[in-house]
């Protein structure tokens, strides 16, 4: 039995139709607040904005440039861009969702007259904005300190890849945030984030790792994103761009659908 009741025929109570408020305004405000909220929380903004830059500076620029030439510099730029893009999706979306659930904020939001879908759309948008910012910061470091030289179109494509490439990780974050308890979520997320970046060849080339790791790499979304990033900066790709795009899109869709079903469980 549902709570939905057709009382229109019996009741003479005036039916006040939903007054349409432009959903766009609500969405923009919601996304802006979600962004500000994370930016002002050091336990999010530091791992999202500072760690990737710090690691890139240490391993990509000071150590990396010493041992490689221009192609190594581009290779490291692609790797660390992908590393930086993973955090806003996994941490920014996953951990905040688990927290919102844990602290009753999600329940309150669901009781409020917020049009359906806006909550999730705002979280995804926030992760895209962060991914865009991280990628710009990494690219600035690469150009200024890493002596990476690329045509403008390639910088632009790397930026676009970062902004959209965060989505599979945001969807995975949604799924983990739906399943994990609030306090456990950061641990679970880090157990995905760091091993996945290693297993996808972000820290060490897959050729140097055991063969089985290279074979399993196509299972991880980060592997496909880094392959795309490599092909954007001009390194030879292993398999076609289309296959990687398809893999990322498919993974994002599966995570997203599973997360939506998981969230429905709470109703």
């Amino acid at each position, binding site marked *: 039995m549902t*709570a*939905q009741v057709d009382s229109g025929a019996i009741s003479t*109570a005036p039916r006040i139709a939903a007054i349409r*408020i432009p959903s766009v305004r609500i969405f923009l405000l919601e996304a802006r607040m979600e962004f500000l909220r994370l930016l002002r*929380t050091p336990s999010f903004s530091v791992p999202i904005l500072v760690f990737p830059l710090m690691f890139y500076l240490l391993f990509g620029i000071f150590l990396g440039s010493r041992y490689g030439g221009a192609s190594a510099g581009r290779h490291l730029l692609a790797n660390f861009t992908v590393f930086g893009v993973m955090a806003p999706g996994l941490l920014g979306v996953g951990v905040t969702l688990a927290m919102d659930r844990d602290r009753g904020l999600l*329940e309150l939001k669901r*009781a409020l*007259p917020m049009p359906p879908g806006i909550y999730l759309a705002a979280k995804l948008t926030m992760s895209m904005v962060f991914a865009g910012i991280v990628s710009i910061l990494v690219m600035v470091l690469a150009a200024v300190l890493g002596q990476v030289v690329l045509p403008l179109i390639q910088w632009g494509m790397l930026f676009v890849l970062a902004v959209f490439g965060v989505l599979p990780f945001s969807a995975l974050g949604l799924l983990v945030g739906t399943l994990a308890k609030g306090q456990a979520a950061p641990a679970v997320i880090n157990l995905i984030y760091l091993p996945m970046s290693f297993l996808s060849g972000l820290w060490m080339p897959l050729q140097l790792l055991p063969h089985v790791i290279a074979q399993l790499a196509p299972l991880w979304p980060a592997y496909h994103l880094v392959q795309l990033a490599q092909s954007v900066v001009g390194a030879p790709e292993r398999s076609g761009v289309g296959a990687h795009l398809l893999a990322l899109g498919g993974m994002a869709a599966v995570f997203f659908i599973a997360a939506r079903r998981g969230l429905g469980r709470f109703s």
Partner: protein
Amino acid sequence: MNSTKSPAAMLEGVVKRYGANTALDGINLGIERGKVTALLGPNGAGKSTAISLLLGLSLPDAGRVEIFGESPRRLSTRQRIGVMLQSATLPETLRVGELLLLTSSYYPQARPLDALAGLAGIGEFLNRPYGKLSGGQQRRVQFALAICGAPELLFLDEPTTGLDIEARESLWTIVRTLVGEGCAVLLTTHYLEEAEALADRVAVLMRGHIVTEGTVDEIRAQGVCRRIRCISRLPADQVRQWPGVSKAARQDHWLDVETRTAEPVVRRLLDEDPCLAELEVRRAGLAEAFVQITKEAV
């Protein structure tokens, strides 16, 4: 049905189970317009379940849940309600003004921000992050968020926990003003004096059943009616035998007597103890009635 007489919200024959546990076992409850209805009950009685159903956060296993004659899950219904949930923690790094701006954006006829801040008494900390506020200030912000959409039905879940007496009184005053304007309020509270001060109607929920419902006066009348206190040398054991006396106890030189009707007992006390002093007769409050009702219902 007349639109002014039909209740703002109602539960009709509502059953809600969680696995083998029946949280609500066929309850009926109406929340009238322009009135404060208090839902009382010990922890685990089913209050949260009832609120969750009324807010459309869960569906009943049987029965009907209606708000303004509609499903509580409709956006148009939700635009007419305001919610203050005890369990919700708002984002700590957002400023109060930002939280108000965001929540107001959900409502078609939101109150102007300045008026709202003045009404809820939060004008001086609009620019402060929510997490930097004291518990009482946070409650006031949550209350402001609940009323920002000028709701016709307001859910207040433990609204004054952590508030000092002055802040509590001022919140009560706002609630009374809103109710005077026709707003319906569902109040759950652990402070029975709060229910006594605000509520027009009280429903007591116990183990998934509404064990009693009525006006505050009606509920009070169900409890022990009068408490008599005086300095007397009469032995408590003897007074306890008198007709109409349910309890008598001595505390130093004070004698405490509970009875349904005070007058005959007072007359006899004065007759039998000419030295009796400091006589005091008090009507039992909602708190005492509540304790008795919940004890009897077990």
